[in-house]
């Protein structure tokens, strides 16, 4: 029993930390730079599929299956997602911020479409299976397996967290914050301001892609359904609860919101009768949406942020 709980605890924390990673990426884009990304699910999916395609064993019915080592897959995931984000930024960041929002929304729609329909690349609705999992050798011992995974995920999160903290204190980070304060000044600064923001958006995208890859290898199987707008929405809720602008807040917000999400899910599963389950889960999303709006109205700085953010 205790062992089961421990194993579950490790599993829960691993999932939460992966969300924490995505939220860290969003915090760089939004919290630090003020770039609004409504297509988080799309960028996470790009990373997940990139790594999955590169690392899975050869599959006859689709492109890919290159059997690369996991670490290389993760690196490639970060790079590919960064490139996608950089292009999105390039196309929109010289314009008003709303255009970026609309375009990222479109990216998520199109990625979902490709994932569903480009069967030869993504496996279509059935997704990609047999994604190599780290520590597959100890899979028979769930506790050890879960903790080993948690260790790796925690290390990656810590690494990204420290790197982002460093970046935000660097001159580069200071420029980003200055640009965030004044959109008009940023437009007036022209090319160089635009390039800073593209860089920030790309690095944030890389973190999201990495998170997608880590999650894909943690679960071992991905499908288009994992990357619906709800994901984007959850990550936003995590950042807003945590307090945008703070990396610490991003990770803490992710853990708290994921706990609420899983907890309310377990509760409804136990309490709500079977034919009302779908409706109850809709109501869960409604309440998160309302919560997001309430935070925007009454506590825009979040709950764990150190700085006051607008």
């Amino acid at each position, binding site marked *: 029993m205790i062992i089961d709980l421990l194993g579950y605890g490790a599993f829960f924390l691993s999932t939460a930390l992966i969300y924490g990673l995505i939220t860290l990426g969003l915090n760089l884009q939004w919290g630090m730079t003020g770039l609004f990304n409504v297509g988080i699910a799309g960028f996470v999916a790009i990373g997940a599929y990139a790594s999955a395609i590169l690392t899975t064993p050869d599959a006859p019915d689709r492109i890919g299956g290159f059997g690369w080592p996991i670490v290389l897959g993760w690196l490639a995931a970060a790079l590919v997602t960064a490139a996608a984000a950089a292009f999105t930024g390039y196309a929109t960041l010289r314009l008003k911020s*709303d255009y970026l929002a609309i375009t990222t929304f479109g990216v998520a*729609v199109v990625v979902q479409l490709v994932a569903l329909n480009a069967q030869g690349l993504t496996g279509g609705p059935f997704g990609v299976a047999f994604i190599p999992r780290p520590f597959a050798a100890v899979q028979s011992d769930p506790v050890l397996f879960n903790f080993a995974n948690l260790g790796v995920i925690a290390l990656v999160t810590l690494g990204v967290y420290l790197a982002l903290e460093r970046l935000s204190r660097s001159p580069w980070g200071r420029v980003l914050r200055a640009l965030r304060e004044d959109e008009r000044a940023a437009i007036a600064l022209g090319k160089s301001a635009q390039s800073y923001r593209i860089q920030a958006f790309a690095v944030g995208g890389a973190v999201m892609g990495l998170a997608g890859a880590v999650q894909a290898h943690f679960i071992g199987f991905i499908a288009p359904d994992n990357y619906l*707008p*709800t994901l984007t929405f959850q990550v936003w809720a995590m950042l807003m609860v945590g307090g945008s602008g703070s990396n610490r807040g991003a990770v803490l917000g992710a853990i708290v919101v994921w706990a609420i999400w899983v907890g309310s899910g377990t509760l409804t599963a136990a309490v709500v009768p079977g034919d009302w389950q779908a*409706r109850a889960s*809709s109501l869960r*999303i*409604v309440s998160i949406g309302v919560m*997001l709006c309430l935070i*925007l109205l009454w506590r825009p700085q979040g709950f764990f942020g150190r700085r006051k953010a607008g």
Partner: protein
Amino acid sequence: MSLQFLLDGLISGAMIGLGAIGVTLTYSILRFSNFAHGDFMAWGAYAALAVVGVLGGSTPMAPLSFGVPLLAALVVAMALTALLALVLDWLLFARLRARGQSIIVVMASFGASMALRNLLEFIFTSRPAYFSRAIQMAVPLGFGIRITADQVALLALTLALVTGMHLFMQRSQRGREMRAYSQNPALAQVVGIDVASVVRATWVIGAALACASGVMVGTLVQIRPLMGLDLLLPIFAAAILGGIGSVPGAVLGGLIIGLSGSAAVQFVGAEWRSAVAFVILMAVLLVRPMGLFGVAER
């Protein structure tokens, strides 16, 4: 080759165009892209469905699949959707707008969109609903095009709404005030224009047209909680393609997106329809971000 895709494109273009008018007005007057606009369409369609349910069935006006109840429901639903938009503005958007950061308002609209959509799923479940299940006779027009009476009626309705909108914006005092405010909010106040009534008019018009578009989709296709979300990208693309702030531009943009979409269905494959809006959006942003009828941002 059948030219049916032209008619299909025209019809989906009409739906997109009606939605895009609201988006373009919200953007140019309230200065934010409203991600909840698609959900106004869905709420409008469900509101009409509910009203039809209350009014009860009656014999359809042959050869149409619907009768007076749906038309009455459309009017009531347009009013209800407008009310929804006004309440949402009062509760949420107006308060955030007062703080002056437009992108926060965008985020709020995103949160509101998620809540609104799932509230619909909660109330009506995600099962599709229909105004009528009757099969309609399609009349051949030549070149392989077949058209149903419903399609004719709804295209005519769109034409009437768009023309009415255009005349309202050009000829009425409120329309002039809305245009003036979108060009220069500070000067609009100096001239004596009441911002609050301009804002109200914007929400009412945008939401009512979104509702009309939603009822069209509901009559010709089906009603689902996700119907608004699915049309959101084409609507944004149409508004940007037409030039933000331009009502005729939004309609023309909608027609172009709709026709391109159905051409993609014909020549590439139905599953890629939604990608067309994105491709056009990217092309516009890269080549001519002000759109067809837009002016460079001040």
